């Protein structure tokens, strides 16, 4: 045995018994500073956790909305072209064509603030001040008649108290109960039905994009 291997063996014998790391901490990464966390921690929860200090009124929000949001969402939140509709649709969720808007569908006002803060305006995200976001949130709520006074001020203390119309419209995934019959069935394999009739065809709609190259049937 070479000197080197001998030495390696001795080291292994000595080192191995004390090798296990302490308490699962490997020692990777560094501690995040309070300043770093504050800068990145932009989320807001329904209970108001994370709502930054600030305030804004419906009236202030209207001015901002017309300047920065109406191009896509429309003057009254009606949605231009295919951009999202923000207002209306109350009571339409059972309809054949429901309108799922902030007012008719969103369960929490905090979500409006959280989403504007992180993602709006589209293409210029994280450019608004917290006061501006409170004002815009207040205006979107007013478009949906959830707040009615144009002087209403939304702030970090009252955000969590806003009651959204569809707050109770959600329930946890229940597929394993309501769709239990999809499990453990033995499907028929032969002579299962007399006939199979065509009920609908995609080509009637003719909305498949034109193929630019390659095999094309339609």
């Amino acid at each position, binding site marked *: 045995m070479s000197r080197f291997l001998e030495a390696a063996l001795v080291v292994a014998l000595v080192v191995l018994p004390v090798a296990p790391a302490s308490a699962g901490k490997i020692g990777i990464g560094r501690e995040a500073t309070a300043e770093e966390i504050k800068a990145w921690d932009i*989320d807001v929860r329904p209970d108001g956790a994370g709502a930054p200090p600030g305030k804004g009124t419906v009236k202030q929000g209207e001015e901002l909305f017309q300047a920065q949001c109406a191009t896509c969402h429309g003057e009254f939140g009606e949605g231009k072209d295919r951009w999202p509709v923000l207002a209306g649709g109350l009571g339409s969720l059972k309809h054949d064509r*429901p309108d799922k808007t902030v007012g008719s569908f969103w369960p929490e006002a905090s979500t409006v603030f959280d989403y504007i803060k992180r993602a709006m305006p589209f293409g210029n995200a994280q450019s608004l001040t917290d006061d501006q976001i409170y004002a815009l949130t207040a205006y979107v709520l007013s478009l949906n008649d959830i707040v009615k006074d144009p002087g209403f001020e939304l702030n970090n203390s009252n955000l969590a108290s806003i009651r959204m119309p569809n707050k109770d419209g959600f329930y946890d995934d229940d597929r394993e109960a309501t769709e239990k019959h999809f499990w453990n069935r033995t499907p028929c394999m032969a002579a299962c039905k007399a006939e199979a009739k065509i009920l609908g065809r995609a080509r009637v709609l003719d909305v498949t994009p034109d193929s630019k190259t390659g095999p094309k049937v339609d």
Partner: protein
Amino acid sequence: MKHIDNGNMEHPATSRRGFLTRTLAGGLAVAATGGETLAQSRKKPLGPNPDNQPPNIPDWSKVLGDGVADHPYGKPSKYEAHVVRRDVEWLTASRQSSVNFTPLHELDGIITPNGLCFERHHGGAAEVSPFDHRLMIHGLVDKPLIFSMDDIKRFPRYNRIFFLECAANSGMEWRGAQLNGCQFTHGMVHNVMYTGVRLKDVLDEAGLKPNAKWLQVEGADSAGMNRSLPLEKALDDCLLAFKMNGEALRTEQGYPLRLVVPGWEGNLWVKWIRRIEVGDKPWLAREETSKYTDLMADGRSRRYTFLMDAKSVVTGPSPQAPLKVKGRNVITGVAWSGRGTVTRVDVTTDGGRNWQQARIDGPVLGKSLTRFYVDFDWQGQELLIQSRAHDSTGYVQPTKEELRAIRGVNSIYHNNGIQTWLVRSSGETENVEIS
């Protein structure tokens, strides 16, 4: 015209040009018989050339090909230029908050090539520098931490193959057959081998507080994509991945770091992941309230429907991959389940009157695409082809009607109903619904 997530897409009026094109293609299809293929009868620039066929000697057998320095990063053959992701322009308001589709009809086996994995962005594909990218973990932890990409790669690494399916895959089909092509009806799925580190190991490094229950995971893109993830799932099998199919993640798949949430809806697989906040309650972000909740017929909505149920689709023949010759043919497709492995796939060619078990070939892995085949003889008769997946929990893929009976037609997401293709006597194939 509505946003993709609306599910109530209206369609442009049928154009006369579309009708004429269709009629013409139909005529050509009928003319193709025997050993001649549809492609042979139509493709001019890159079609068959008798000069290259026996007994002639083609040019490529005589002259030198490209040298090794000509293509430092290889691309598919020019004859495969049509194998691309495609989008449906009328679906969404912008190309940055939009989706394109994997060309399932052109693929085989179970792995999706990186450049063909469908894309779904909410603020465009962010171009993130790996030198500056950081992952922050904070909230209910013993010690908030920041990791560089080099740091992340020092945790123990794992290789796992998983499908990623957008919850809205097949979402356009709730009200009936709408799009002709499995690329469009089922192409918001891909299957990739990820290399990454366990989310559990990274969380343990920060140390979880006893009251930790949920994570908020957040992307560094301009949508700041955020979702709430139950801690139980995070500790079970989630990965922070930096490689896909052996190479670095593609920009559009979250380079340099993405979350992998096996078997669960794609929206949770946050790309460009920059922050994990540990909390005791869900956040109810936009993408888990106004989107990715399932509106039922009674006007109430299911939430936290994370899991993707068993599903399958025949990819050939399909509208973009018609049958070309009579005689022996191959029916092929893919099946998957977010609950476990695919244990069996049944296929019918007569609209569900009779079924046979397909032959599964290739790896059968949990929460992964599984490839199936039926080798059959076609004499030019009309076919109504369907496939039906079974998974290791005993779940059997339902029909679309069975789903509609429970959920109505406005739920947008989680449409895993059985797909039907009508193969006409010409070989042309179209998307239909049957009784």
